[in-house]
């Protein structure tokens, strides 16, 4: 009895001290992901276990009358064609994809019962029969065609995810045929991603401009249906009685939007929310949220230090290698408040190689890729060989948000004589510098990744003239890299692709335009529930089906 009181008092003291400010958070945050396993003693954390039930089925049948979910940010609308990031954590529970990516990175059926690659450019999907929309009508290939047509860059949509698609046809009620402009191995995952979700054509056509907006929403096939959306406060969903996988066990779901993680943690502590996926600062959250604990998965998204390879002194490879050796990943990860998933040594996450071969094959391939372990002597030796043996000064320009981490990077570089003061600029100014091609020494996180190794091409892309575009922060433009990227998509054989992306990784490691620092983490927090199979693609799945009571 006295023990529990003392415990509570301690927790209170801990929260009170956290209220003093972010600086104290690091000191008082106790619950790391590793030492906080509710199922300790009996094997793996639920978050790390795979779903072991059929498509459409919930992992746990235990009825939950009402679940309250807290998410950071707001959902302005649910139409993926208008705004793909809106509803990132919510939509998939109501609007479903054709396929899903399982725990091993393999594609599995979902709304499509079967699919086939007819040729290098033609894919055919056979829909599950008898799948009902919330209004009782049946899902047909027309709905799929319509939903995906809206994603084409030519439509009002703004997405580039469907740029590879030449045409989408619906030859019969249950068949969807996708033809690509040219072979593109990364297409196979698009029907399993959050931007490939399906909604009802009739409703979308009837509502026109208003489709997806708060008053209109969308009609889907998912286990939960949208009841209402207020873009500033939250969303209500309820169970879909005629769901093709059977009525889901959670009757009602309330989603609440939070602007600030700290207030979300306090709301969880006060019992106003049951579970919060995708939280930003796990350690601070766990410290403020009382009895809740967190689980963090290391995703395939890459957080990296980027050097402008076309600008002096960064155009000197010895300078870049010196930086790569001077980076101490463990210290940087410690500064992220639990946001980092795991140390990362290659630009393309090893997770993304999984689909290209057996684990032995992948391991053997990755062995060939050079890495730069933390080694101050090696760093100093590299710098001594460079054009600036006595060090130099260059701003580390970053958008707000990762400044604590950037300070650590800056301090580590000071050790070898590189003076890199941190300059924090607004996000828009940072994106503006990228768009203007201003050379920038920077540190960045990227967010959601896709299962194909081509995902990391966002850091390497060039236009037809060979000039850097998109997030090619390092302005790294060797023609061989461009060739390998093109080849990697055209090639369909996994073993060949493994070779290509290994080549690519070797070249990038050789030239070090980027220093990969850590695999970004994704974290949920809850006192009473767990999310099974909480991996890189948890939000590309009706994840509420994976919620299990503790």
């Amino acid at each position: 009895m006295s023990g529990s009181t003392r415990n509570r008092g301690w927790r209170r003291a801990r929260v009170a001290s956290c209220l003093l400010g972010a600086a104290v958070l690091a000191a008082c945050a106790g619950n790391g992901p590793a030492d906080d396993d509710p199922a300790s003693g009996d094997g793996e954390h639920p978050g790390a276990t795979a779903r072991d039930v059929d498509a459409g089925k919930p992992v746990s049948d235990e009825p939950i009358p009402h679940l309250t979910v807290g998410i950071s940010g707001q959902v302005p609308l649910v139409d993926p064609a208008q705004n793909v990031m809106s509803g990132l954590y919510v939509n998939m529970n109501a609007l479903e994809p054709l396929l899903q990516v399982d725990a091993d990175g393999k594609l599995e059926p979902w709304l499509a019962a079967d699919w086939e690659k007819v040729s290098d450019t033609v894919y055919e999907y056979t829909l599950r029969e008898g799948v009902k929309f919330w209004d009782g009508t049946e899902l047909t290939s027309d709905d799929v065609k319509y939903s995906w047509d809206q994603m084409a860059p030519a439509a009002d949509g703004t997405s580039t995810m469907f740029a590879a698609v030449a045409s989408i046809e619906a030859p019969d009620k249950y068949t969807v045929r996708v033809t690509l402009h040219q072979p593109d191995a990364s297409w196979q995952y698009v029907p399993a991603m959050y931007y490939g979700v399906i909604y009802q054509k009739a409703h979308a056509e009837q509502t026109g401009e208003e489709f997806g907006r708060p008053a209109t929403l969308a009609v889907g096939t998912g286990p939960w249906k949208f009841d209402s959306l207020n873009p500033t406060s939250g969303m209500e969903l309820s169970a879909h009685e005629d769901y093709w996988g059977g009525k889901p066990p959670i009757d009602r779901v309330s989603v609440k939007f939070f602007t600030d993680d700290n207030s979300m943690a306090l709301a969880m502590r006060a019992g106003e929310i049951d579970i919060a996926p995708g939280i930003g600062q796990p350690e601070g959250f766990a410290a403020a949220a009382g009895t809740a604990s967190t689980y963090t998965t290391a995703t395939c998204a890459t957080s990296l230090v980027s050097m402008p390879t076309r600008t002096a002194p960064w155009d000197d490879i010895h300078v870049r290698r010196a930086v790569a050796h001077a980076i101490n990943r463990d210290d940087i990860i410690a500064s992220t408040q639990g946001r980092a998933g795991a140390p990362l040594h290659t630009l393309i996450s090893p997770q993304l190689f999984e689909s290209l071969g057996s684990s032995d094959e992948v391991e053997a391939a990755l062995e060939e890729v050079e890495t730069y372990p933390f080694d101050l002597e090696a760093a100093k030796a590299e710098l001594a060989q460079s054009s600036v043996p006595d060090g130099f000064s260059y701003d580390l320009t970053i958008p707000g948000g990762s400044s604590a981490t950037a300070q650590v990077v800056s301090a580590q570089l000071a050790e070898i004589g590189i003076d890199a003061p941190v300059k924090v600029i607004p996000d828009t100014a940072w994106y503006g510098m990228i768009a203007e091609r201003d050379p920038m020494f920077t540190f960045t996180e990227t967010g959601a990744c896709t299962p194909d190794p081509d995902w990391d091409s966002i850091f390497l892309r060039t236009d037809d003239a060979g000039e850097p575009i998109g997030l090619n922060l390092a302005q790294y433009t060797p023609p061989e890299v461009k060739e390998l990227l093109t080849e990697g998509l055209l090639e369909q054989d996994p073993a060949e692709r493994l070779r290509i992306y290994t080549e690519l990784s070797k070249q990038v490691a050789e030239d070090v335009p980027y220093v990969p620092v850590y695999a970004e983490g994704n974290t949920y927090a809850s006192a009473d529930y767990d999310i099974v199979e909480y991996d890189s693609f948890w939000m590309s799945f009706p994840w509420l089906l994976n919620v299990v009571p503790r």
Partner: protein
Amino acid sequence: MTGRAILLMIGKRLVALVVLVAILSFLVFSLVHIAPGTAVDAYLGGKPATPELVQLLTERYHLDEPFFTQYWLWLKDALVFDFGESTLTTLPVTDEIGIRLGPSAFLAVYAYVLTMILGVVPGIIAALRQRKLLDRGLVAGAVVALSTPPFVMGILLLYLFAVLVPIFPAAGRGEGFFDQLWHLTLPALALALCVAAFLLRHTRASMINVLDQDYIMFARARGLSWGHVLVRYAFRNALIPVVTVSGALLAFFFAGAVFVEATFSLGGIGELLVQSAQTSDMPMIQALAILIAVLIVLSNLLADLAYVAIDPRIRFEGRSA
């Protein structure tokens, strides 16, 4: 001031408002063209510039027309509250502002009322109990509240009254009058306390000043009751400087509550303003700038009308002249 004079004053202010908004609308519209990059970039808001999208935006915002034609077309839409679509969320700007307007106005008025009650009443009490223990206590409390910024106060209140003693909700804004009142009590208090402390000291000083005046002594000497003297003579005179200060408060509470809005996840106008500035959401910035200008002018007009009601000198100015 006669009824006609008051109407004339209101009329003049409204004309000034129209002129101000006209000038502001021009400046705000020019933003799109002044911002770095082309007007298309401004409307793209960071999205990839596919030829289709550029074409779409050029048509939607008439970007191939001359500047003044563009302005005229924009103004015509703006007059019927059509400011285009947010580049961030793609929802119509008017919808986005609309759903936030209610709670923000509720919060602003609630905080304003609390500020007045918590500032003026203790201020008068402190003045009447000058240099007594109660006065010292109130002034000391005011110093603490004055030096606590609203976002710190917000987290403190949140922790005390939503977590330790859970009598108020930790987040959200509620539906319907009483639910909103319940949800917005902590945010309104967080906003109000700091300003109320300022107002308390202001009221106290002003009240002490008035109580020292000869006419108060004369009124008492004539045998008027203390209560009558306080309410009719002292209080009304002391209130004039307080009203001056409070004029800008309503607009400030409305648009300047961003920290408190974030702390309690209210989703209000202040947050929208900061978010649109961060993401260069041009149509949103344009609409909000105009909205806030209108609010500031209107709340100052309200303060002036309150003057007229309180201060007979202003009211009778027109007749004696």
